[in-house]
């Protein structure tokens, strides 16, 4: 029925099966929209946040999906600036995934602020000294870049491409994509970094604060670095998942191998930097404020030393070693395990840099603050994930996302 929209020569599942799946995910979207409306109409009292937990699940979700969405800017950087030409076979999907991640982040931020109608104050009355201002500006601009990168893909739809103007527009945008990609990389560098800066500048919070270079705390550079390392892992993770769901090989192994290898090197170097940063913070920064390292990992029922081990060893060192070994990369189970662990690792890092910061008591006469999100918070966090699945599914069905698909599935 919709065969006129499906790219020529490619096989897709039946329309009934496809839209049944979309409907199931759509139900989750509706649940999320209901929660979102509750929050917008009734206010943030719908959440389990409180005055000690001003930043919670949503900010973690924002930081997490932006780190995972980092695959778009870094793959674009490698393809257009460094000139890794093979990556043209995965860049489209990286762009779609990045687009979904950044759209989700924008939506969650719109729900998260207490007075959404005043959201434009962050731009108009910008405090240029605040890391959050830098986040807002670069994030919004970069989302614009992602839209620009996504449009030519849309225009490649069989029916849209028939319109000469759209065909020409798409062609012209492809021609100068390197300029957009470079701007995107520039913006990404700053907003990924400033998201790290958000925690690193909190000098009233010994768990978060870091020394740094000029106005940038070390977390600034660690976040940019980790987004470049772990973002491509998420691209590979979703690609592999798509291959499993569709039952087709979509990207050639040499392309996967190249991206995985680069991610491995980024991750390996990142994790060394992260260990040095943690070591310095634990032995110099924190003690200078009267804290021992274990003060941050004891006296409470959740945040133990396990979380640091999970982040650095399980979600960092192990996936980095797998991705760095040619054997690990060529074994599809090992590769999938590695990129999955990596995604979990970066999500733990973002969690710790938001929620553990809030949980740890700074005044000596206070106790740890623990928080469990309300269902409204959970639903509004799942909402963009479900929405993202729909966007990705529609994009895959109707757009020629994978240039090698036809060749791999004759």
């Amino acid at each position, binding site marked *: 029925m919709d065969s006129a929209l499906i790219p020529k020569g490619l096989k897709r599942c039946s329309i009934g099966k496809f839209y049944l799946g979309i409907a199931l995910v759509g139900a989750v979207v509706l649940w999320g929209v209901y929660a979102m409306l509750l929050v917008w109409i009734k206010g943030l009292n719908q959440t389990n946040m409180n005055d000690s937990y*001003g930043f919670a699940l949503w900010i973690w979700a924002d930081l997490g999906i932006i780190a995972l969405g980092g695959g778009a800017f870094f793959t674009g950087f490698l393809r257009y600036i460094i000139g890794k030409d093979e990556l043209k076979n995965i860049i489209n999907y990286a762009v779609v995934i990045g687009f979904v991640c950044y759209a989700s982040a924008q939506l969650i931020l719109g729900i998260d602020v207490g007075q959404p109608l005043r959201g434009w104050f962050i731009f108009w009355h910008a405090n240029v000294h605040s890391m959050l201002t830098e986040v807002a500006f670069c994030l919004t601009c970069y989302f614009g870049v992602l839209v620009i990168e996504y449009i030519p893909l849309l225009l490649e739809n069989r029916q849209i491409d028939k319109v000469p103007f759209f065909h020409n527009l798409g062609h012209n945008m492809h021609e100068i994509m390197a300029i957009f990609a470079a701007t995107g990389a520039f913006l990404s560098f700053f907003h990924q970094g400033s998201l790290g800066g958000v925690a690193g500048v909190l000098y009233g919070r010994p768990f978060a604060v870091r020394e740094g270079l000029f106005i940038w705390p070390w977390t600034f550079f660690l976040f940019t670095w980790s987004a470049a390392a772990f973002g491509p892992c998420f691209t590979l993770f979703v690609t592999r998942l798509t291959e499993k769901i569709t039952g087709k090989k979509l990207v050639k192994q040499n392309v996967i191998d190249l991206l995985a290898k680069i991610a491995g090197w980024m991750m390996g170097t990142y994790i060394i930097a992260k260990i040095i940063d943690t070591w310095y913070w634990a032995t110099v920064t924190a003690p200078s*404020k009267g804290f021992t390292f274990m003060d941050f990992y004891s006296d409470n029922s959740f945040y133990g030393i396990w979380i640091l081990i999970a982040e650095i060893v399980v979600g960092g060192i192990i996936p980095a070693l797998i991705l760095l070994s040619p054997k690990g990369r060529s074994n599809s189970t090992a590769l999938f395990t590695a990129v999955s662990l990596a995604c979990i690792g970066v999500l733990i890092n973002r969690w710790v840099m938001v929620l553990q910061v809030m949980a740890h008591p700074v005044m000596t006469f206070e106790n740890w603050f623990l928080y469990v999100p309300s269902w409204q918070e959970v639903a509004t966090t799942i909402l963009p994930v479900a929405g993202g699945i729909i966007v990705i599914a529609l994009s895959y069905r109707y757009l020629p996302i994978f240039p090698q698909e036809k060749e791999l599935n004759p």
Partner: protein
Amino acid sequence: MKEEGKHNKKAKKYGMVINLDNCTGCGACMVACMAENNVPFKEDESDKLDSITWMRVYKLANGESYPDADICYLPRPCMHCEGYHGHSPCVSVCPAVATDYNHDTGIVSQIYTRCFGCRYCMGACPYHARYFNWWDPVWPEGMTKYLSPNVSARMRGIVEKCSFCFHRHQLAMDKAFLEGRTELEENEYQTSCTQACPAGAITFGDLNNPHHKVNQMVKPDNKHGGRPGDPNAFRLLERLGTNPKVYYISSKEWVRRAGDNYLANEDRTVQQH
């Protein structure tokens, strides 16, 4: 950020000294603050994690057992941190300039109509002095008549905190202006909690003015981030570098030590000086 007062020799540094030896923990300061500043409340105020208390009295215990057990009450307003040159933890992070450090008075303001409720300042404040309006304020019937006309009520979705009763400063300055003066007497500008304390535990004034009691009580050393000269005086979490303008006095070492974090082998007096 406006920094007119930076090089102004007449710049004030309003601050507070709270003598914990005198504090009985009665909570009159909290009540006075709420009434003075139209602080909203809920029917059930038992969950202190989402109720608004600009001034909050904490109960500290030394953790010893009888007969050495001891407690101390510690009132905690906003510390009006100066940080390093007005770089207070919360002011520097606000993305929309909704909170500002006034270099003329040393007061950290909160602009309710500018705040859009991102709550980054709350995350930045180690004292939990900042509160979010999770609900719109609801006043019991007839109570709106008792609200102070000098302080705007706040709406849902924004952050608020102690302002050192800044409206009182404005009123006092207006009065002085009409009388042809530019300077205030010490007693012309006092916060509500200071006046309400039955034990006289709270003293308020200009820390820069050697004639003011607050200056005489703690002898702040402005060359070294305002650290107190009096050996019994301390500030909360001084080691973080927040440079707060609320000083505490206690004759008990365990209370002074509870004001900040120290490693087990650290000597408090050495670390502070």
